[in-house]
């Protein structure tokens, strides 16, 4: 009973997803919602505003510099995560070793 219910729900979800994919605009189409006045402003005014011929650099470090500040902070977070995970594994290993020694001693 539960399985049939799940199948019906999943089939409904499949229909929903397929219909929404059919409604999506094509890749690179001129009618895309992403192609609006912001894009046109960047293409026309980026070099004038920032004196940088590379428009991508002008966008990521001038118009959207605050976003890039968060992006560089992600690198710090990755280091903190890796160091904490690795040191956690290290402590576990030491702990297991002492446990084994204690068991051997008892045996």
């Amino acid at each position, binding site marked *: 009973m539960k399985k049939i219910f799940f199948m019906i729900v999943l089939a409904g979800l499949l229909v929903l997803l397929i219909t929404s994919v059919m409604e999506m605009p094509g890749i690179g189409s001129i009618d895309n919602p992403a192609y609006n006045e912001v894009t046109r402003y960047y293409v026309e005014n980026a070099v004038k505003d920032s*004196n940088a011929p590379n428009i991508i650099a002008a966008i990521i*470090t001038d118009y959207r*510099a605050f976003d890039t*500040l968060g992006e560089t902070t992600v690198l710090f977070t990755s280091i903190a995560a890796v160091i904490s995970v*690795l040191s956690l594994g290290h402590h576990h290993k030491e702990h297991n070793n002492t446990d084994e020694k204690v068991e051997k001693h008892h045996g």
Partner: protein
Amino acid sequence: MDDLIVKTITRLIIPFIQLYGIFIILHGHLSPGGGFSGGAILGASIVLYSLSFGLEKASKKLSHETSSIIETAGILWYIVLGLVGIFMRGFFLTNRGAGFPMGEAGGVISSGMIALITLGIGAKVASTMITLFHTIIKED
């Protein structure tokens, strides 16, 4: 890895890798590339060095303290550049309005804040890659 061929090739090729990384960072506002890709190339050169010469020699070249100082300095440099905008104009991270020297479009020294920020990002990404790699192979 104790191999003469690998060591010799590494010693020959590292200056060119680092020169290419510095070129990409300095031309971040002119050509494809920028702080992230140039910093990744710079970090990869040190990763190559520590793979072929071992962790001890690589730590002697660039210790853990130095790379964490560079990393912190990179992000602080970015924030200081943003604060310059606040004090000069009233907006965080303003380029032309904050009075950075804009230069002439197309020159290496131009576009004000963009080139300076790219330098900070490059130093930060390079030291992050080195710190991550050294931490991971130290735990083995």
